[in-house]
């Protein structure tokens, strides 16, 4: 039988020396004169680069009544410029052996290519071109609107659990636009058009609202030269607006919702609480919430797994997660899939009992040590995946955080105490400030 405690000590001592420092050492950051941020993550193990441009704009920055326009514009960014025909961007990437895609969240929109390292300049040139010179005609815009409606069908309308998630978020946020789905409400998507897309583009797409992240086999000097050449000449937008969204009022009443759908064969319970996000220079509360989610719901030895699955046979699946990288207030989420014969009400009562008890007892010290050990090891495993590091920096830098915040985060996590975790649980897991969703099959009528 292994002796975990001995190894824990040895590894902790070793990890605190070179590992973490190395992880940060291969990251270089600078800013172009026009305000564009650049992050370079060097990894020379394979002759490949990931090139990403992240815009500090997402679905939560959309004008009222135009939900889905940020994501629609993301699709339309592949439809050509003064120099590129519709679809040519992707076909040039493909003809050079690369792949490309894009994604949209509430807080950011990102475009990326993975390609042989010697083609970095090529993709930079094209990405810079579409930052400033997008051309759209209805011949491209209208069929693409049908595509995003089919995307909504595929991701949301065909899945009752996705419909519940959408309704749940809408119930969580009374006032903040995080309550609107990224893909958009169907009736608003149907009205999106070329003018709305171009308006959004001109308002938000500019070098001073963008972060360039390059990860892979390139030197910082080379990236700087290429970035200055391709992006340096693009004029900044002097009229960028501050990213202020309507904020949530205090939640005074618990909210409950039930979705009944004939397509449900496995009911489940979802629960969320409004929670603070990671703030630049002040990530301690978020770190405590991150560890709270790990302690409660991550892995086989988590508190919820232990109690609801192993001891009481209440659940077949449990989860807890906290998405701290967010511009505004985020959520702390829990979910329980009940075991056969257990009602959602029973599952909910059991969940609440465990939460109440946890606030009284706090985390098990050895469990917390194991989680911290795993987080330290992640710093090693993460170095195997430069693209994931690129995403981490891009996401942080478009969500109000800095490079320093990203690099401080692992140490802040290590410093979280059991008391801070309990305090965070007490503040956030307040029943009066909860939203509880139920996914169920229709009631059988005789």
């Amino acid at each position: 039988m292994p002796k975990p405690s001995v190894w824990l000590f040895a590894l902790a001592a070793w990890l605190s020396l070179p590992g973490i420092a190395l992880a940060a050492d291969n990251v270089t950051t600078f800013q172009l004169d026009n305000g564009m941020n650049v992050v370079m993550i060097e990894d020379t193990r394979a002759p490949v680069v990931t090139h990403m441009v992240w815009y500090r704009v997402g679905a939560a920055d959309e004008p009222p009544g135009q939900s889905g326009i940020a994501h629609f514009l993301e699709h339309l960014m592949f439809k050509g410029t003064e120099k590129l025909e519709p679809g040519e961007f992707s076909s040039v990437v493909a003809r050079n052996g690369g792949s490309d895609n894009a994604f949209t969240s509430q807080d950011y929109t990102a475009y990326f290519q993975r390609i042989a390292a010697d083609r970095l300049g090529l993709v930079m040139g094209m990405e810079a071109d579409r930052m400033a010179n997008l051309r759209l005609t209805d011949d491209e815009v209208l069929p693409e609107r049908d595509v995003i409606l089919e995307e909504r069908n595929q991701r949301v309308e065909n899945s009752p659990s996705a419909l519940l998630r959408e309704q749940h978020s809408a119930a969580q946020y009374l006032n903040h636009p995080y309550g609107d789905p990224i893909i958009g409400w169907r009736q608003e998507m149907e009205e999106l058009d070329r003018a709305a897309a171009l308006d959004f583009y001109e308002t938000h797409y500019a070098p001073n609202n963008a972060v360039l992240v390059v990860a892979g086999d390139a030197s910082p000097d080379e990236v700087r030269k290429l970035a200055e050449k391709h992006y340096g000449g693009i004029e900044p937008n002097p009229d960028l607006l501050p990213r202020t969204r309507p904020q949530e009022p205090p939640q005074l009443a618990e909210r409950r919702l039930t979705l009944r759908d004939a397509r449900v064969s496995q009911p489940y319970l979802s629960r969320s609480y409004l929670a603070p996000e990671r703030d630049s220079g002040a990530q301690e509360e978020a770190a405590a919430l991150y560890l709270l989610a790990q302690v409660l719901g991550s892995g086989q030895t988590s508190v919820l797994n232990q109690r609801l699955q192993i001891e009481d046979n209440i659940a077949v699946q449990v989860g807890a997660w906290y998405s701290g990288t967010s511009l505004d207030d985020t959520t702390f989420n829990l979910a329980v899939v009940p075991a056969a014969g257990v009602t959602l009400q029973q599952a909910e009562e059991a969940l609440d009992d465990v939460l109440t008890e946890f606030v009284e007892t706090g985390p098990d010290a050895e469990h917390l040590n194991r989680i911290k050990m795993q987080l330290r090891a992640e710093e090693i495993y993460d170095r195997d995946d430069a693209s994931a590091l690129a995403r981490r920096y891009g996401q942080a830098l478009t969500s109000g955080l800095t490079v320093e915040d990203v690099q401080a985060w692992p140490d802040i996590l290590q410093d979280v105490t059991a008391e801070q975790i309990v305090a965070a649980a007490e503040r956030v897991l307040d029943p009066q400030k909860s939203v509880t969703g139920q996914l169920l099959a229709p009631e059988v009528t005789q």
Partner: protein
Amino acid sequence: MKHLVLSLVLMLAAAPLHAEIEEVTSPGGFDAWLVEDHSIPFVALEIRFRGGASLDAPDAQGATNLMVGLLEEGAGELGAQEFARARDSLAAKFSYNVSDDAVSVSAQMLTENRDEAAALLRSSLVAPRFDEDAIERVRGQVLSGLRSAQTDPRSMASRAFDSLVFGDHPYSGPIEGTTDSVEALSREYIVAAHETALTRERVYISAVGDITAEKLGPLLDKVLGDLPQEGAPLPAEADLNLPGGVQVEEFETPQSVAVFAQTGIKRDDPDFFATYVLNHILGGGGFESRLQTEVREKRGLTYGVYSYLSDKDAAQLWAGSVSSANDSIAEAIRVIRDEWARIGDEGVTEEELRDAKTYLTGAYPLRFDGNSQIANIAVGMQMDGLSPDYIANRNDMVEAVTLEQINRVARERVDPEKLTFVVVGQPEGLDGSIN
């Protein structure tokens, strides 16, 4: 921009891998492929056993899947929770998966505590406990997944498709089994599945990262040496039922999901690469294929349409999928059939062939971008009967495909009459008759 592109159409000079694959034989006789890379202090170990869910006896469907789900639920001296605690204390990562043709074990272990992690991995493979409480817990999870799949259009479509195409072959049923079969699985079946699915004669191994050949050999002997030698017989080749036409399974949901296939090709067929490139042009890859262009880009009928060559050990399919609103799925299927027929009749152009080759040869090295990815590729190559020099030669084989060959293959192999669709949803305007 177009002239710039033409000047860049050239082969990638860089070899896919900086490091070389080393063939290692352990003192105990296990063959493994090793890529040493000491830049990050961990190793990715990929272990695969040929057989997988297709080894399930007809009266024990889902036994292999349930068995694999239990490997990390207690082993040797350790109960489920103790095992998890020991693994987490070492920050080792183990994952156990099953497909029709294989049981896959992926491990990532820190250099600092590799021996302890390997000992734990060994116990999960060689001495799983299959405690009754763990069996009931994992059985409950599997049944929950099966319940969800019963009303998920995508799962329903692939299940209906497998059942139609594979008849009474083991591929016909879901890997997880059925609600009835899983409820009936006793511990004896799970123990039997373990004895027949994880065996020395069926194992393929690769290791990538911070380990030397001298260390790897004894580690493999320790992890795998106590497994039984021989496994259950592998299934016979499947008789494919691909009659052509459309089978509709009515289900109330706004978007219909379709899966489709015709006969595929074996990997060792002399026409494999020509067919592979042909499929890339037809429906592979990202935004560039004919199917994506016609169904998505021009007509807005779908978010995505794809085709791919599926080469299972006992069946080869040329398959694909599409989903579209109930009132447009018929048109999507019509366009797919038209494109299927057109590529058979007309073949491809010189330009399409050139672009496909440039993409496929350029994209190949991009796959080798992490220890775990490389370990995965290396073990997959072994299962396909390839040698390490395949990595260096593979792009030459793509380049060797000629226009004449690919268009002959298109004429001979593309078979729109037998292209068989299964649709789940409430499709409008589909007659729903299997040929």
